[in-house]
């Protein structure tokens, strides 16, 4: 993969997804290059979360094709479990395994999915917890952690699987405002380390600083995309402008 | 935790005390008081116009239930005939055999007719009329059983079923278990005689000990064979049980039974039910 920098890590082509009669994705396409940080914005119901779930096949698209590192993962016969190991995912409401400690949350995938011996899994899990700055919370259960800490454990859990790309589904929107910083910091650090990331978020500050590209989607398709500077200063579409103005206002108003 | 344990202990102590109190009551009853209360028994029954009689309707040809749910059998016809002579209606109540004595004691029923034998032990709790029929017991086994019995003690060491609260249960406990001939865990006390018979037929137990005639009847129905008919396990004859101290009732019933024995009424009813 690293031999040609031009080869995209992810290519999404014209995917459709409906739930019953509700059409959520209506011909969505996107290409992501290695080490890119793509921030996905759009009004609620525009299909952002569904898109992430399509990418790691948690809910496979009805039609259209997706390539991950030049392998078509929507092709029949592909084992979705194997695909997901290469895609890390972080959820809005953390979804930490409630019966396991922070350490256990990171270890379980290593042992059960990557089949690591316990000792090795332990060491790697500790390393990942250190990456998110939570070694001192290793033996705490989820209920004993703050929201921000939970989300950092969730990130460590995803990182433990050694993903080639990370998906973040509104990682800070369930957090109290004062706790978002620690999570965004970890994400920023990941970006610096060269992790490819697709982030659904309305944290405009983060988008401005970290994103290589901002994608505005609405009605299940990409309306407009571009580098943050361009998207925030002079978006082409009126709808993009209106939306970004609204959330910028909310952003500043909230602080 | 400690508090909980203490509470449990308290509860248990209270309950034990309570059961101790109730235990004293029935046995501690003044004989005088009991007979005073019982002296009106016959009058009570006459006044009510009916006598309530308990039975355990699982014992053909003595007592069973027919297709329409009526009580039929020798005992049933007999008690109805007695009721006629008493000049009262007869109401029959079906209950487990082992509850019958207690039910009389507690005054739930006025009398018991259930192929019951007047044993000394039962006589301490209730009174009995003169016997209306002498009986024998029978040992039954499955058709393919190779067991041969010449005397009751030959049952030693074989699994055996009896009905709870019967004299046969008592005999087995006293003569086979207490003497070490049969281990206690080979003796099974059944709620109903017919269930014990079914278990012999199904091969779950080897032997069944019960009254001879019902045993023969059940043996016919469930395909058992009778190994031994004996008098030595049975004591006395079949009597009607009535509350302790109900002397007037006893006198009247004794008189009627003697009359029926003399005039051949009982013989006739016996024959109607195939009893020799």
């Amino acid at each position, binding site marked *: 993969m690293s031999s040609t920098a031009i080869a995209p890590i992810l290519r999404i082509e014209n995917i459709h997804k409906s739930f019953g009669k509700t059409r959520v994705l209506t011909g969505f396409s996107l290409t992501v290059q290695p080490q890119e940080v793509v921030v996905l914005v759009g009004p609620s119901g525009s299909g952002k979360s569904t898109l992430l779930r399509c990418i790691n096949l948690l809910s496979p698209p009805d039609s259209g094709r997706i390539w991950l590192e030049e392998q078509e993962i929507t092709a029949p016969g592909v084992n979705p479990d194997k695909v997901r190991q290469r895609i890390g995912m972080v959820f809005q409401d953390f979804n930490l395994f409630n019966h396991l400690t922070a350490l256990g949350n990171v270890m379980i995938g290593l042992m059960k999915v990557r089949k690591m011996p316990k000792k090795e899994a332990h060491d790697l899990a500790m390393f990942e917890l250190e990456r998110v700055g939570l070694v001192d919370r290793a033996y705490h259960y989820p209920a004993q952690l703050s929201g921000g800490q939970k989300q950092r454990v969730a990130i460590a859990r995803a990182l433990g699987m050694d993903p080639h790309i990370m998906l973040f589904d509104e990682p800070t929107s369930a957090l109290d405002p004062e706790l978002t910083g620690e999570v965004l910091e970890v994400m920023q650090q990941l970006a610096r380390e060269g992790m490819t990331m697709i982030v659904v978020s309305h944290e405009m500050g983060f988008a401005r600083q970290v994103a290589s590209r901002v994608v505005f989607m609405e009605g299940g398709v990409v309306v407009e995309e571009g580098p943050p500077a361009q998207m925030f200063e002079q978006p082409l579409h009126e709808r993009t402008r209106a939306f970004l103005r609204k959330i910028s206002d909310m952003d500043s108003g909230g602080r | 935790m400690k508090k909980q344990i203490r509470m449990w202990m308290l*509860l248990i102590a*209270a*309950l034990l005390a309570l059961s101790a109190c*109730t235990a004293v009551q029935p046995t501690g009853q003044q004989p005088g008081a009991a007979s005073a209360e019982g002296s009106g028994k016959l009058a009570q029954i006459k006044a009510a116009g009916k006598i309530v009689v308990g039975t355990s*309707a*699982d014992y053909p040809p003595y007592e*069973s*239930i*027919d*297709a329409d*749910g009526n009580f039929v059998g020798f005992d049933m016809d007999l008690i109805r005939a007695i009721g006629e002579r008493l000049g009262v209606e007869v109401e029959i*109540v*079906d*209950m*487990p055999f082992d*509850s019958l004595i*207690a*039910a009389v004691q*507690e*005054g*739930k029923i006025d009398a018991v007719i259930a192929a019951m034998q007047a044993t000394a032990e039962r006589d301490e709790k209730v009174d009995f009329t003169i016997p209306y029929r002498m009986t024998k017991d029978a040992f039954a086994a499955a058709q393919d059983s190779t067991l041969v019995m010449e005397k009751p003690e030959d049952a030693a060491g074989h699994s055996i079923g009896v009905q709870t609260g019967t004299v046969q249960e008592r005999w087995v406990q006293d003569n086979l278990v207490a003497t070490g001939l049969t281990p206690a865990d080979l003796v099974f006390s059944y*709620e*109903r005689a*017919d269930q014990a018979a*079914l278990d012999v037929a199904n091969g779950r137990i080897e032997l069944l000990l019960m009254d001879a005639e019902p045993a023969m009847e059940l043996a016919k*129905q*469930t395909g058992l064979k009778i190994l031994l008919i004996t008098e030595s396990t049975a004591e006395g004859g079949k009597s009607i049980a009535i509350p302790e101290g109900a002397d007037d009732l006893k006198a009247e019933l004794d008189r009627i039974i003697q009359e029926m024995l003399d005039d051949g009424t009982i013989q006739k009813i016996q024959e109607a039910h195939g009893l020799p």
Partner: protein
Amino acid sequence: MEFFQNLVTTFNFILQGVWVTIGVTAVALAVGLVFGVTMAMARVYGNPFLQTVAAIYSVIVRAVPVVVIIFILFFVIARFVNLSPFWAGSLALGFASGAYQSEIFRGAFRAVPPGQMIAARAIGMSKLQAIQSIILPQAARLALPAWGNEATLVLKDSTLVFVVGVPEILRRAQQVSARTLEPFLAFSVAMLLYLVLTLLTTQILQWFERRYRLQM
């Protein structure tokens, strides 16, 4: 053909026990309701003495098998009044159910927000009035799902009164099987009849629940 005839005979014979089963269940539930609500009220709103009495009743009765309670009460009741096995058995079953129902209603009383009681007292109601007209109607609705569950349990436990000779479904099944010597047929029919009864009860209770659901 013979099997069919047997089936009809057996079915008809056992069917007569259905009404007895329903009767026992209804009486036991009603008795249990009276005991349960009274004891729950004593437990939640009573003075320490009443609270203790109600707690002991609930704990002891629920720690003892229902069949043991039936045996004890069958003989205890007989000591005081002359009741038929049907009434004695039903009362005993009701006494047992009362303990379980008292737990259900205790939970329901507790689930009614305390503000309700305060508000009722504030408009000048006495404690008993408040319980009667404000707390009880709300608690009853809250208790309905658990109570429905208890109702089906009592329906099933009503087989236990067969030990004191009540001619309900199981007793009749046993009687007919003693005659026809086809226990499998007899008990299967009994089982089927029971299945119909419980499913029917569940349906009725669900309808009630939907009708009287309280938005809280």
